[in-house]
């Protein structure tokens, strides 16, 4: 079977002057060997080898293709190599971040770490751990709870506001003055530095609850300042692409505008809205600065967002690195920070996967 197709394809007038599919691999192998040989003269190192081999490969691949296939194909192969190279360069930081966090954090990661807080974990405890006399003590249960509650309240505040704003902009604003002003301010809000959002929330609650008031809800307000513009923007885009025909079809059945929006427009756009919201959550869940100035930091569990300070994962990482529990033996604290970072990254990844899942589940079903 393979043989017959091979014969036919080599005879076909349409595939004349085409390099076989294995050609780039052969060129790549050659480039690797040659650059290894060159480098062994000058002193071998892996990075130099990779870079030199890549450059050699791009050049040789182009030259071989030019000789056999002509200029157009050669340019095509050259551009393909460049794009592939750009992709790899873009992936390097991402992969290396994940790799670093994974290798550093996995050692501190355990069920205990997820279920205990930092109460009673003092310098003495960490010194014992560092001396190998006891396992790593303490954990992130309180910070995880705090992050969960603060993000939950931030979502409770920003999803309705953001969604209603988007509905106003798309369905009612009709490019009027107010709509344009809102769009402008939403754009400005997108660029607000997160610490400013934190100061705003702290200042707001200083007026309401007295100066120095710190609680989970203040952090949630700070995060919603950052979240609202993202929700508005993504929902707006999603509502805009709902075809007007569907609105008209609903009106023509004698359905009111508001009901049309709630029962036709939003359900049609819900998959995009939901995944936009999830990505907005992922965007704020790792915010550190606004939480430190609004929610404070504690070592024990607090499940009430309306009173007392509240820990969060980013603040936990920050304080573990900056103020190690045992100043003389910072290693256990560093390990806890890496493990918490690992949990945070896993959370963000889960949220992004969740967004895809939501988009898939809610997407309008087509088929018989």
């Amino acid at each position, binding site marked *: 079977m393979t043989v017959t197709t091979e014969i036919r394809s080599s005879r076909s007038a349409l595939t004349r002057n085409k390099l076989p599919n294995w050609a780039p691999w052969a060129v790549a192998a050659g480039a690797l060997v040659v650059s290894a040989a060159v480098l062994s003269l000058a002193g071998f190192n892996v990075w130099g080898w990779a870079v030199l081999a890549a450059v050699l490969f791009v050049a040789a691949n182009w030259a071989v293709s030019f000789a056999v296939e002509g200029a157009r194909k050669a340019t095509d192969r050259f551009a393909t190599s460049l794009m592939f190279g750009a992709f790899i360069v873009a992936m390097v930081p991402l992969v290396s971040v994940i790799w670093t966090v994974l290798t550093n954090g996995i050692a501190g990661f355990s069920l205990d770490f997820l279920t205990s807080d930092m109460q009673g974990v003092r310098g003495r405890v960490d010194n014992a751990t560092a001396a190998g006399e006891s396992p790593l003590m303490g954990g992130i249960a309180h910070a995880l709870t705090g992050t969960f509650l603060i993000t939950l309240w931030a979502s409770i505040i920003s999803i309705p506001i953001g969604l209603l704003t988007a509905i106003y902009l798309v369905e009612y604003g*009709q490019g009027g003055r107010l709509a344009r002003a809102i769009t402008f301010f939403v754009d400005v809000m997108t660029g607000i530095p997160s610490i400013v959002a934190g100061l705003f929330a702290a200042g707001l609650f200083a007026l309401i609850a007295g100066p120095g008031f710190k609680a989970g809800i203040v952090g949630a307000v700070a995060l919603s300042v950052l979240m609202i513009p993202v929700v508005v923007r993504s929902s707006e885009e999603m509502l805009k692409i709902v*075809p007007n*025909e*569907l*609105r*008209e*079809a*609903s*009106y*023509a*059945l*004698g*359905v*009111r505008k508001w*009901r*049309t929006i709630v*029962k*036709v427009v939003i*359900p*049609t756009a819900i998959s995009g809205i939901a995944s936009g919201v999830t990505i907005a959550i992922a965007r704020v869940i790792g915010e550190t600065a606004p939480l430190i100035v609004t929610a404070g930091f504690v070592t024990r569990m607090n499940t009430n967002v309306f009173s007392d300070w509240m820990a969060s994962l980013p603040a936990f990482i920050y304080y573990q690195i900056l103020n190690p529990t045992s100043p003389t033996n910072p290693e256990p604290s560093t390990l806890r920070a890496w493990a918490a970072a690992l949990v945070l990254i896993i959370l963000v990844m889960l949220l992004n996967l969740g967004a895809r899942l939501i988009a898939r589940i809610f997407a*309008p*079903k*087509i*088929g*018989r």
Partner: protein
Amino acid sequence: MSKRIDVADLNVYYGNFLAVEDVNINIDAKTVTAFIGPSGCGKSTFLRTLNRMHEVIPGARVEGKVMLDGDNLYGSGVDPVTVRSQIGMVFQRPNPFPTMSIRDNVLAGIKLNNKRISKSDADGIVESSLQGANLWNEVKDRLDKPGSGLSGGQQQRLCIARTIAVKPEVILMDEPCSALDPISTLAIEDLINELKNDYTVVIVTHNMQQAARVSDKTAFFNIAGTGKPGKLIEYAETATIFSNPSVKATEDYVSGRFG
């Protein structure tokens, strides 16, 4: 369950642009009326004023009267939503709701308005509406499948079923067959003939044969030039329009010497 429409001195605007000028027309109950005319002469625009869909477009407005059995649609205090629940509309492109099953699409007019309805009543409406749209036999085994999984012609008949499920007095159709093959077109033309027994039907079409086949009366619209308003040129029995029109422009148009 069908009402007559009388239009008096109707001007239709998009912002400051006068799209249709001074239309007077009387449409009898339980008849099929066809609107014909060259592209851009304002057939769709005028049709949409008959159920107050025109004003959905920003800046669009209307002057004059449209009477539904003697009640002015544009009288003060008239809610366009009430008007639209009595005068249904089928669009040029089939537009079933993509998030709903076939069954829910038929019941859309009821469900979207949050009307309570028993399951047996709902089943009855679904069956009778789909029967009325000649679609029942094709979809009765897959009522819970999405409406967007049907063929274009089936989707259009689903839209008709959805329209008749709310039991309107009048059904407006804007080129309902323009996206369909000849067989689906015939199915819909047959359907229009049946709908006439219960409803007043107004249909816009570019297909002369179709107008001749389905309509009792025909209205010819024309436009003097770009930027000028469209006008109702002649309105008479369909047979008269196609065999013995009184205006030269109508004759030119129906005989294909124009437009």
